[in-house]
């Protein structure tokens, strides 16, 4: 990417959102509908709704649970996925079970976990997020490890790379594009589960707040919560892209090089 391209890219990235916000602003400007307040009202409600207390007791705990569950899923998914992808026996053993769990929609987990772990504390929420995020990461890791080029593995073997070096420099690096694809899917699943996990029982959290506002007919406040949730998604996705751009630059380059051939 050249420097001169940067302003252009920023313009393109911001163009549509700006247009949409403007549309919303003007379309809702004279609105007297209770459920569809003017955007100006929502913007005014924002600072008074999200003061220090809700930040500290709703937003940050939600985000912490999301990141905690997501990181657990990432660690377990990559570790288990690598083990399964490397071993034919393990794969044959696990494949039907994995297919089954993949087919179960993550929100269904919530009542099941509630049954076992109760649904008031943080543990069960983190567990829900972790379990929901696990499958895309796990299955993609298995696929990535399995589709590693044989010649690369033979090269590692013939130069007698040790187990750790092979795992680190060859297996994980080689399957990182697939792992990243799974991790990206899981990120949006994680945000959804963060909200859903807060809907049961008396709770605090970003998702719980939105529902509370809605139930108490605090409609502009509800909208501020939804906007905050959307912004959280954007920030997480941008962070993800930042990591991806650094660690998968080789993959992009290789793909582009192949396309040009």
């Amino acid at each position, binding site marked *: 990417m050249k420097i001169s391209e940067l302003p252009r890219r920023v313009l393109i990235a911001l163009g549509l959102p700006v247009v949409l916000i403007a549309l919303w602003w003007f379309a809702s400007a004279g609105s007297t509908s209770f459920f569809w307040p003017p955007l100006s009202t929502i913007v005014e409600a924002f600072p008074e709704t999200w003061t220090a207390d809700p930040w500290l007791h709703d937003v940050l705990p939600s985000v912490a649970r999301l990141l905690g569950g997501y990181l657990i899923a990432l660690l377990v998914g990559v570790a288990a996925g690598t083990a399964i992808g490397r071993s034919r026996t393990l794969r044959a053993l696990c494949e039907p079970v994995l297919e089954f769990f993949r087919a179960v929609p993550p929100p269904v987990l919530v009542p099941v976990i509630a049954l076992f772990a109760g649904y008031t504390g943080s543990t069960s929420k983190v567990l829900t997020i972790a379990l929901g995020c696990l499958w895309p990461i796990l299955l993609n890791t298995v696929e990535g490890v399995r589709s590693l*080029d044989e*010649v*690369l593995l*033979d*090269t590692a*073997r*013939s*130069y*007698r*790379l*040790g187990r750790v*070096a092979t795992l680190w*420099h*060859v297996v994980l*690096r*080689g399957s*990182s594009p697939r792992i990243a694809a799974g991790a990206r899917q899981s990120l949006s699943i994680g945000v959804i589960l963060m909200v859903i996990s807060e809907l049961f029982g008396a709770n605090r959290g970003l998702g719980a707040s939105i529902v509370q506002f809605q139930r108490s007919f605090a409609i502009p406040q509800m909208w501020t919560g939804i906007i905050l949730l959307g912004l959280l998604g954007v920030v997480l996705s941008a962070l993800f892209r930042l990591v991806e751009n650094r660690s998968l630059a*080789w*993959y992009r*380059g*290789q793909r582009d*090089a*192949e396309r040009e051939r």
Partner: protein
Amino acid sequence: MSDTIALDVAGLAKTYRSPGRDVEAVRDLTFQIRRGELVCIVGPSGAGKTTLLRCIAGLLDLSGGQIRLDGTAVTEPPAGMAVVFQEYGRSLFPWLTVRGNVELPLKEKGLAKAARAAKVAEALDAVGLPDSADAHPWQLSGGMQQRVAIARAIAYEPSVLLMDEPFAAVDAQTRADLEDLVRTLWKRLGVTVLFVTHDIDESVYLGQRVLVLSNRPTVVLEDVPVDLPDDRDQLTTRSSPQFTKIRTHVYELVQSAKRGERPEVR
């Protein structure tokens, strides 16, 4: 006598088994290579040259026979052996730079950073790629990638070097340079070299012996000694009558191998 034998291939057989289709690639190969020898292998395409090399490299399970390296049976990739794969492009790690690719096996060998850097620079210099250390393999042409694979092998300073058509993708001039490089390194390091090639002239120019393989299922058709002087030169050696005589003989052998001719059953 037996202590000078580096590589002893006895009755090697390899059949690829897959559901519904067995391919008998190598039937019965027996030959020996002395320590420090440079032997070329030629044979028709699909004869099983790559299969043979991968068996020697300890990357394939044998279906029969035995391979011994310095007296011990090869059951896994042996220490001190480097392989330049025919699929050179796929043997380079795309996430590492050229330097990283050459350096990784040295790291694993436990070399210190400074020593590694020196060896990497020296090897890249030898193959004519001193300026490409920071490029990634996919930014290089096929011939350059092949030279990176060669650089990685020579930086490793193996005692046995297996090369599978290592010059297939390079241009004629680079090819001549690399041929001389292999001979120079071979002489300097005393490494045992097994060199597979399609190019009959190359096999005669490089080798002390040329093993001609038959069609599949493969046996050794003939073991041709190359009695050319040790000091070889692209111009004079290749135009000498002795060179022409040997290359004609090997050429005829390969032709007859392609027609399916086989040595008498022993």
